[in-house]
């Protein structure tokens, strides 16, 4: 149970950060144009 929760959490956290990074990159490119 713990391992399953831990792995799921790591995936969710890093997906969230990657999405944040992606939105930031797109927004900063758009604002420079």
């Amino acid at each position, binding site marked *: 149970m713990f391992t399953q*929760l831990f792995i799921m*959490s790591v995936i969710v*956290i*890093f997906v969230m*950060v990657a999405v944040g*990074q992606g939105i930031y990159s797109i927004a900063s490119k758009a604002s420079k144009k």
Partner: protein
Amino acid sequence: MRIGVLIAVLIYEIVVIFGVGALISKKRNKDEEGGFALGGRNMSVIVLAPTIALTVLGTAHILGVFEMTFGMGAIAYWFSLAHVVLIIVACFGTGIWVRRMGVTTVPEALKGMYGPKNSLAISCVMAGVIWGILTLETQGVGIVIATMTGWGIVQGAIVGGILGIFYVILAGMEEVGVVNVINAAVMYIGLIVATAFVAMKLPGGNFDTVQAFYDADQSTHFMTSIFGTPDLFITFAIAQIIAVVFCQGISQMLLQAYMSAKDEKTIRRSVWLAAPLNGLFGVFAVTLGLTAKSLPQYAELGPKMAATTMIVDMLPAWVGALLLAALLAAILSTFAMTSLTPATIFAIDIYKSLFKKDASEKDVTRMIRIMVVVLGAIAIAVSAYLPPILGAINWLFAWMVPVFWLFVTGLFWKRSHGVATATLAITWIVNMIWTFTSLPASIGGLIGTLPNGYITLITSLVVIIIGNLTTKGEPGYFKVHEFKEV
């Protein structure tokens, strides 16, 4: 009473806090602007990331998550994930913007956008809200020490409060940062060892029996999934994200760490360490909460006592000491920031801005130190008379929602002093009415049960949008002021 556990942990805290404080205070240039409050704006990733993570990881992540897990299962983990979203929003949004503006406080940033009167109102309310969180952390440190050692809650709050004051008062932000790096390591070592010991005490030496307990009954099967049920996901998980992000995303409590960063790149890099450091704490809290509920002898104690009693019963003294140090690391780091940040607001936005405009860096630092002691002492004094932690935190958070939206719309859309005044006044009055009158009960239904965060979110957006569309105002701050990336 586990007096040995208490003494060992207190010695550890004293050595780390005083050792780091003395070293940094010797090194620090006392005349450097923002030296005490912002660590000279020189924080690197390795110091900034744990500081961000631990600032918004406190009592509610421990006692609150234990309690929520008991009732709704692993979906309670979204309280932690909401803070991960908060850290991401601040690392790619509000945190970067305040660093770019080069301000020392959030009200200082809003002063340039909405004038001194609105800024002063925000200073007073923001400092009050953060101090409210400080009183809850003081209560939390008392409860944790009392549960794990048998000491009284008041004595625990006094000792914890004094340690919390010294966490920050010797060398300010830089001290908080370095102590946080050490404490982040201790926190995870303590959590991992304690969780492993609890697992070893269970049949089979792992958590399989806990999983089997929930799987055996169709009505509890969903409790081991962090996605819970669709209903819970909408009413709890999404609601947590809204409440935490819009309330804490503009708070000085979190953003003072971002203002202390070396540059914007450091902030963006920190997110990859700060987000997991903060978010994974919840996995341990949820696992321990689920385990306590699956064991009848602890489940019968109810949501408030089950997990903490189980931990104290199952762990040998040395692991108990390690876990107490881990939990104190989480709570004292938040205590330190919730005392430093309202003290900074008072020193910059009230003392320097209104009473002593020519105050030197030494004067400001002295005023911050005095206020840290005063605010910490009052928090200790009132911590024994406080309401339930989670209910109080939700009410406090709701006050900051209009400030978040005024900041974002003021940077990128339009600014009007009148609209800002109206937004703050109407939203805060509505928040008070929603809390202290029978209006929610008389409305009833789903709307009547909405927490304060939703009410202040809806009110703020309605007033800002109608106000900005119907008044002339000035263009967004970033549209007329040139700010280069730092």
